[in-house]
């Protein structure tokens, strides 16, 4: 059973207790193409649900990563800053963007589980 939840903007959050790990979905990395630059939030930064928390850029375009929930950042993933291609290679694992302490777990309820997200992707085809 996956504990991953997804937004309509193609971010995911994996939850363990009150800590969430945030990244972008495989669909998102594929749509973006080769990632050449990322900017992750610094530790201690407060992020709000739906607000810009990170930046991901491909050769052609820059996109924002919106936080799936509100909270306080506990770490940004330096590995993807050093090696942006990791976002393409492992979007839903090693290519995570940041971890945060979740401020309000009830915000998770509005996110989609894997099955709902997959169904949502079909509507975009």
């Amino acid at each position: 059973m996956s504990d991953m939840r997804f937004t309509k903007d193609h971010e995911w959050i994996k939850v363990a207790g009150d800590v969430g790990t945030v990244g972008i979905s495989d669909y998102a990395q594929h749509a973006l193409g080769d990632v050449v630059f990322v900017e992750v939030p610094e530790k201690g930064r407060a992020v709000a649900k739906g607000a810009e928390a990170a930046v991901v850029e491909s050769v052609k375009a820059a996109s924002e990563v919106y936080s799936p929930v509100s909270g306080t950042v506990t770490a940004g993933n330096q590995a993807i800053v050093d090696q942006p291609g990791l976002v393409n290679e492992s979007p839903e694992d090693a290519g995570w963007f940041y971890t945060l302490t979740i401020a309000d777990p009830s915000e998770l309820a509005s996110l989609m589980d894997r099955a709902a997200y997959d169904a949502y992707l079909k509507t975009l085809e």
Partner: protein
Amino acid sequence: MSDSDTLLLNVPLDALHRELGGKMVPFAGYSMPVQYPAGVLTEHLHTRNAASLFDVSHMGQVEITGADAVSWLETLVPGDIRGLGIGKTRYTVFTNAQGGILDDLMVSKLGDNRLFLVINAACKHADVAHMRAHLTGGVTLRPIEDRALVALQGPKAAEAMVRLAPEAGAMTFMTISELSIAGIGCLATRSGYTGEDGWEISVPTARAEELVRALLAQPGVMPAGLGARDSLRLEAGLCLYGSDIDTTTTPVEANIAWIMNKRRRAEGGFPGAEVILGQLATGAPRLRVGIQPVGRAPARAHTEITDTAGNRLGEICSGGFGPSADRPVAMGYVPAAFAAIGTPLKLVVRGKALDAHVAALPFVPHRYVKA
């Protein structure tokens, strides 16, 4: 198919693009491949390492004929068309009365009374209307609607071309020739928009797919889309109409004053000559320059450029990540006093002022096969 798709024109190679997995996007009214499954980064690097085939059939092709064709075209462009040799190709621009640029184009001389023009897709209808409005007796203008245009670009382009058209090997940069390529009668210039060696090939629509399949069958040749074409031309420091040059920029400001020779500078006789020749004499207020961001963050078009004290200087006109340069690269307009190579600048990216400096163009050296 959505409603917006139905308004788009398809290029003759549309079915082949889809067969090759091209990601089709709207561009200048056409449905065009922005990339293939390899992706922009791979397509870009492959072009610099081997050879890529680009479909640029959305661009306009025009034939100008008549006893006065050459002198007539010189009334619309600041370039030296009279001095262009038969079989030679030259880059020039259409200017307006204010000295602004209406479009940039390639002019090839097929004979004393016969010119071949390649103009931008987004401008082609306006260009043709502009030319027709100024048409005089002794000049005939014919938009060529029954030919596709493809570009083969990269260090292995020559190998592929010579295998299919042995006489192509004798051509040098910026020359034009009628060639039989894989048995197909084509009109080809040794030119391109990537900074690499290569050809742009005009081919009858009915045989375009056959030609492209023959080129793609050559070792080292892969299809590439408009995404790679844009990052390649940016690294090569080449202007994109609508981004780097437009009706608000003169050729002097755009730093392409080299398109004018001594005679045209002395004689004028093209739209906006007073403004352009005035800028040549006293200097342009601003100039297009290469800009090197210091960090890893790309600075995209319209990014604000400031001096080190934060005073606004201008904007980035083209910017992104250069896959071959392996760093962000950009071009922008700055006041002439800030145009010297090495001048420190700031780029305001997402509210942060990032370090940058004026850099020499191109970012990646051109590798043309010159005479």
